[in-house]
């Protein structure tokens, strides 16, 4: 549970820096806002090592629920007897349980079944290995390398409410800054209460600059200003935070399309990125999210957040299958260091165990 302690200590520590000011109606007891918890500082090498894969990180959790799926697969592998209908049904359940979705699950099983038959495979272990390879290939097919063309390289971050956009932006800002890039953030979520303050806190922690307007102002204007500022300040990367929006709200989707158009107009030469943030716990609705955001702004990649929970995020398989969208990063916690590069192999392994 070491990383849990880490998260907790870290959060108290960090949030204490950013003392929320009391409004008139608020009763604050200053002596209670203690600084006792400010202890460990963690930016050590141990931390560096952790950045490699996320499997180590999520494996550390010994929770029963987390093990549930993996145990099932192990059970399936160890079972004796033929690869019969029961076996396939169980495998189907496992994929469904990981949110892969009925359509993609049936497709996967069909493919594997015919290969198993053709190749005369008898071992459960081999079937699972085949499935894992298939899943990996499905995801890898869409992998792309983003080569920033022109400065500033703009990353527009979109998604539904509460998916983890702002936190993911903090994580990316931190990452790029550590890679010696000059990063600028833009607070284009002018709608949600205190969204700007939230991003400001993260900008301060990451040590990057932020362009912001007042709450309630036009997000397009924020983006316009931020691009101008990024040009003037010679930033390498500009990351834009946007308000969470449900994909079926036509007006809000028009608003985000407009933001995208402003970027294209202001930086016609540059290839910008649009990252869709998806909560790993999301079910089949994620397909609708991906489809409609794709229509509104185009999507160059997905950030899959909250993989440190028990959800497997299998929905990205369906999205890879149906919409051919690659996953770029995964989020595995709430601190700035909890961002990992996506890897199809690791994902497939996390889905099925070894």
């Amino acid at each position, binding site marked *: *549970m070491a990383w849990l302690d880490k998260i907790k200590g870290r959060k108290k520590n960090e949030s204490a820096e950013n003392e*929320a000011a009391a409004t008139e109606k608020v009763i604050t007891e200053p002596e209670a806002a*203690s600084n006792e918890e400010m202890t460990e500082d963690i930016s050590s090498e141990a931390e560096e090592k952790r950045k490699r894969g996320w499997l180590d990180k999520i494996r550390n959790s010994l929770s029963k629920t987390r093990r*549930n799926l993996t145990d099932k697969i192990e059970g399936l592998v160890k079972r004796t007897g033929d690869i019969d209908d029961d076996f396939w049904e169980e495998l189907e359940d496992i994929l469904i349980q990981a*949110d892969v979705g009925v359509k993609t699950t049936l497709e996967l099983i069909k493919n594997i079944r015919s290969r198993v038959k053709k190749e005369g495979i008898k071992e459960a272990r081999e079937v699972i290995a085949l499935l894992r390879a298939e899943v990996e290939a499905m995801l890898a097919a869409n992998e792309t390398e983003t080569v920033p063309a022109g400065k500033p390289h703009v990353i527009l971050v979109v998604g539904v409410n509460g998916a983890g956009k702002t936190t993911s932006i903090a994580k990316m800002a931190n990452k790029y800054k550590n890679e010696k890039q000059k990063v600028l953030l833009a607070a284009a979520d002018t709608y949600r209460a205190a969204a700007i303050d939230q991003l400001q806190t993260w900008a301060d922690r990451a040590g990057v600059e932020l362009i912001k307007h007042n709450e309630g102002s036009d997000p397009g204007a924020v983006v316009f200003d931020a691009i101008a500022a990024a040009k003037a300040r010679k930033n390498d990367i500009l990351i834009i935070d946007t308000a969470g929006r449900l994909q*079926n709200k036509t007006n809000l989707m028009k608003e985000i399309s407009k933001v995208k158009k402003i970027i294209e107009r202001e930086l016609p030469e540059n290839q910008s990125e649009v990252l869709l943030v998806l909560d790993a716990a999301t*079910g089949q609705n994620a397909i609708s999210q991906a489809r409609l955001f794709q229509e509104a702004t185009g999507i160059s990649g997905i950030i899959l957040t909250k993989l440190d929970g*028990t959800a497997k995020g299998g929905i990205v398989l369906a999205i890879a299958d149906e919409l051919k969208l690659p996953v770029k990063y995964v989020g595995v916690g709430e601190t700035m260091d909890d961002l990992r590069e996506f890897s199809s192999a690791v994902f497939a392994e996390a889905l099925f165990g070894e």
Partner: protein
Amino acid sequence: MAFEGLSDRLQDILKKIRGKGKITEEDVKVAMREVRMALLEADVNFKVVKDFTNKVRERAVGKEVLQSLTPGQQIVKIVHDEMTQLMGGSESKLQMSTRPPTVIMAVGLQGAGKTTTVAKLAKNLIKSGRRPLLAACDIYRPAAIKQLQVLGEQVGVPVFSMGQGDPVNIAKGAVEYSKTNNRDVIILDTAGRLHINEELMDELLQLKAAVNPEEILLVVDAMTGQDAVNIAESFNEKLGLTGIILTKLDGDTRGGAALSVKAVTGCPIKFVGVGEKIDALETFYPDRMASRILGMGDILSLVEKAQANFDEKKAKEMQQKIRSQEFTLEDFLDQMQQVKSMGPLEDLLGMIPGMGKQLKGMKGEIDEKELLHVEAIIKSMTMAERRDPAILNGSRKKRIARGSGTRVQEVNRLLKQFEETKKMMKQLTDMTGKKGKKGMPSIKFPF
């Protein structure tokens, strides 16, 4: 709208068997296989789906069903019953302590929508005459306290906070504060946490022990997939939940998490969040929702909505006007705005039996802009013109179009719409008026 997709699928499946005079066990099996797929695609947990289809199948293949005169309809009824059961029977209200203050605790994963929801809940409680206090126990997420303060300001509820202090002390402090400041309900906004984070789950347990909440409500994102059962189970085991609030139901999710969460915790869904606006929180009626999912309409909700949004006296006046043909363009504008205030027209129509499916064709929101145009056009008319549109000749129309920044065609379209509405409303009021006399409930449609 949420549940729509599931509703369409189930209706299609059930339509196939509804009218059948003879049904075999095989028919039932096929139908249940389709129901299984529909539920899985709607994110209902796979175990819950198995239980559900098994139960329906067992009841459906019973002699009294298959050999009855209307086996198809009987099966539809069984599905409806089981669905209602799955969703939790009838509605359930918030428990209030007999010795105030009542403490309500909102818990859940990160990003589920707790902060917005507690503010909505506070607003809701004010409406029913309570004096709530919000307490900021999320000391972790950046600007979480600020967010609650801003929302508290919006709904006119004080927010108790102690910066980044210990959540347990904050909760206790809020209780103390409420006693001396005449606050009878305290709602704790807690930090989002993973159900497998033992340390943070222990913190909730300590909170519970310290302030003895009447209600511990799990806030769940309606878009959650199969993991919803793990989440709900863990929170329930640890804390003993008393209810569930489902958020983001204004999305297009099929909403299966609702069924799963209810099934594994046994806790009722007490409220649903249906928008980002601060009053977008509704009581959850399982039976009505089941009806809606199965395309049986939800006329009760519609009538209630109309009643909540329309002034009784105004409605009577309006009826009178319509009967005596005094309905003017000004009234027309007024009506349009009132209907609009009830929520998206799509949602309203979805509540009318049989309408849900017909709506498929008219996708997209009713255009806000159009309403603005209507307003501009009517406002560009003189009083005399508004009362008697018959006097509108070509030059008057031109003037109005110019004044409202529209075109003459649009003015004409509006006038036509107005005449049609007038006619339709006359018919409607005459109809409900007559039925009223026969002892039928006369629904007063004030529009």
